């Protein structure tokens, strides 16, 4: 296991390198550079030239690339052009916010998604099954931006239960965090609930037809043990795979949710950086987020072995 872990971590290096090359190249390919964002519409050609010189954007592309990779080798991700802060620090300030929101959304997704999927499988072709799958389909189909706005109108303006936006860190006030994170987390979770519920349902239907489940029923095991211990446990491998994908979707989906609810997370940070052509921020931020997602996928792979004793990562 340890060897595999090291191998997988080593395998992440080319992935990160590729991401850094692609992000560096793509940002330079997009027309417009940070000077336009800083100087604005009234910028004269002289002002733009001065800013480009200050930022080193008048240097050849190769020089800029060497500067960026030179810093990277020394663990320096550079300094955000627009924020004036180190890229690492800016990202680390935002990452906990997105992680907390994603964790909350994931918890909702797991409980509701797996619950609805199992229930639908157990009550196949009944109204329960159809209702659960209809809600799942709605979650997949309705854009979370629209859903978020509806939530604001219903729960903030209409009922006054929750704030319209903003963010309070869990460490500052757990209740405040719960209040400010609930609507964003639910709107973020709904898409993934649909996905997970459908996967869980189909996997459970398959498992429930297996001989060992029939045997478990035949020997008189209580229903909850048949479903929980024999069926669901064996359905967990494909579900875990999907959960790994969902974690990535939660991080990428946070862009819209964070913007709508004014949450200072990584999605909002990177969106602003792309729009402002903040090259170091986009390059460094993407690298850190990629590293995080690589670790998540690695964690999912390790989880397989825990969930299924037949899987052993050995030569």
């Amino acid at each position, binding site marked *: 296991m340890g060897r595999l872990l090291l191998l997988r971590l080593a395998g992440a290096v080319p992935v990160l390198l590729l991401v850094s090359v692609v992000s560096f190249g793509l940002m330079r390919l997009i027309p417009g550079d940070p000077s*336009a964002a800083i100087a604005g519409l009234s910028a*004269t050609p002289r*002002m733009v030239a001065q800013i480009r010189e200050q930022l080193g954007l008048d240097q050849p592309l190769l020089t800029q690339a060497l500067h960026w990779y030179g810093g990277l080798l020394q663990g320096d991700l550079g300094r955000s052009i627009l924020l004036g802060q180190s890229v690492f620090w*800016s990202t680390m300030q935002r990452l906990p916010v997105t992680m907390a929101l994603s964790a909350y959304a994931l918890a909702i997704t797991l409980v509701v998604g797996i619950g609805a999927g199992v229930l639908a499988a157990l009550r196949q072709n009944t109204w329960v099954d159809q209702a659960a799958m209809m809600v799942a389909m709605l979650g997949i189909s309705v854009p979370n931006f629209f859903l978020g*706005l509806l939530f604001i109108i219903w729960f*903030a303006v209409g009922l006054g239960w929750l704030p319209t936006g903003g963010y309070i860190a869990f460490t500052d006030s757990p209740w405040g965090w719960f209040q400010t994170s609930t609507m964003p987390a639910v709107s973020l979770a709904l898409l993934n609930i649909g996905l997970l519920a459908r996967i869980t349902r189909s996997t459970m239907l398959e498992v429930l037809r297996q001989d060992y489940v029939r045997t478990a029923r035949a020997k008189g095991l209580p229903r909850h043990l048949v479903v929980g211990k024999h069926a669901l446990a064996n359905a967990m491998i494909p579900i875990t795979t999907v959960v790994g994908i969902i974690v990535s979707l939660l991080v990428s989906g946070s862009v819209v949710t964070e913007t709508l609810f004014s949450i200072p997370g990584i999605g*909002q940070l990177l969106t602003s950086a792309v729009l402002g052509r903040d090259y170091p921020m986009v390059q460094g931020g993407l690298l850190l987020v990629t590293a995080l997602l690589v670790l998540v996928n690695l964690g999912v792979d390790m989880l397989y072995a825990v969930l299924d004793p037949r899987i052993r990562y050995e030569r």
Partner: protein
Amino acid sequence: MRAALVIAAIGVMTAGGAQAEAFKCPKVGGSFTFGQEANVNSLDQMTSNTISTRNIAMNMFEALTTRDENNNPILDLADRMAEAPDHLSYTFTLRPGVKFHNGKPLTSADVVASWDRYSKVGLDRQIFDAVAGWEAPDAMTFVVKMKTAQPTFIEKLSSFSIPVVIVPAEAKDDPPQQLRSIGTGPWQLAQSVPGSFVTLKRYDGYTPNTHFEQRTGFGGYKQACFDQVTFRIVTEGGARVAGLETGELNAVEDVPTKSVDRLKGNANVKLLPLNNWWIQIGVGNATQPPTDDVRVRQAIQAVLDMDEIMDAATDGNYKLNYGFAYPNQPDYVTTGKDTYNQKNADKAKKLLAEAGYKGQPVVLLTNKDYSSMYNAALVVQEQLKAIGINAELKVVDWPTSVQMSQKSDSGWNIFFSGWGTQPALGALATMAFLAPPGAQYRPKDDKDDPDVLAAWRDMSNLPTKDERKAAFGRMQQVILERAYVFPFGSLTKVQASRANVAGFVPFRIPRMSNVYFTN
């Protein structure tokens, strides 16, 4: 002479002293939250040209001069200003008792350091082009020496676009975008979380300008009535309105037009329309075919129906306005009026025929970041198609469109934009767009238009205000008759506050001084 008039105006204000009782907060305390539509990256007012930065920073920083409620130059950190008879130097005497947010008293050494920094990194440092140097003969005196007399120097210096704000001398070498947030204003920085919020708290050591009784523009007698003000970044219009309705936000900027009618029926909300927020405009490319032919540009100008364009661009929240100043401004002139809103398809077709137009594409460069620009381009496209012009839309994001517009050869013919801050500052700032080295100055094949240049020089250098206004009239006429740009009309922006907020008067930048809760 213009400078002399300015000085005279300032002299009246400074020498006269307070005539009535100065403003006193009827109620002190409370926490005010403002819903801001755009993210703010840096609070470095010297190196940022964005409204979002100005929204916050103009409450923290002050400069020697600023603008009053009617956009006239006034003194702010300067107590007095004297212009030499030869117009080659200006002597500013600092207001006594002013302290920075770190408690340090303001001296002329801080002014020198601030001007030094601005001359190195300030975005609008071309305002120093005519300046030979500056010095501080004593702790409270600051002298600016000019290379040549420039009648419009004080007007330019008092601009709030990218003002020369005064910071402590130790900030002199702060890199661009990293200026430490220590000013002299009534509000000081408490916390900034980029992308989320910025909180300012009342600066109890603030020394108001006793030459005034009330806040005026960005200057005057300012008082911080709230304990703290939070600018919360709420980019989505619907979410801003929802926050205002629930009372989480005490005031917001840019209420979507669709929400205005609903809010009119809400007794807890006050709508505060800000007319003439910006001039919706199309900039012609005089170098790129086919708009390099003045007759093609004039044909485009002839067919445009401005009501249709502005209605689509603003959801009905607009005023028709030709030219580059608004009717309520002293610079307003009527030259070139005949070129506006002609809706004359026959004339347009005739001009196209004379130009030998053969269906070459006319590329309309626009963006979706600003829906008003995108919608205006859609309508213009249809109007041009109606007279046989092969109009094509090129939709990119805003930074890209700005960058493309700065190059005449980047494949566009009309760039859709909006001019806000400059028209508010006056004709001189606006026309700087269209004169060298202005951002939108795109003479055909890079050869200057001598008529534009002559009018611009007169606007900048003639000694009297009336002479400069006449020059503005000539420049406007040339620009419009040669169809270098197409002003469509002026857009109204709606701000709003809760009913229990007093003193929040709509202005280009939300001013948090002299604003208070009534209950």
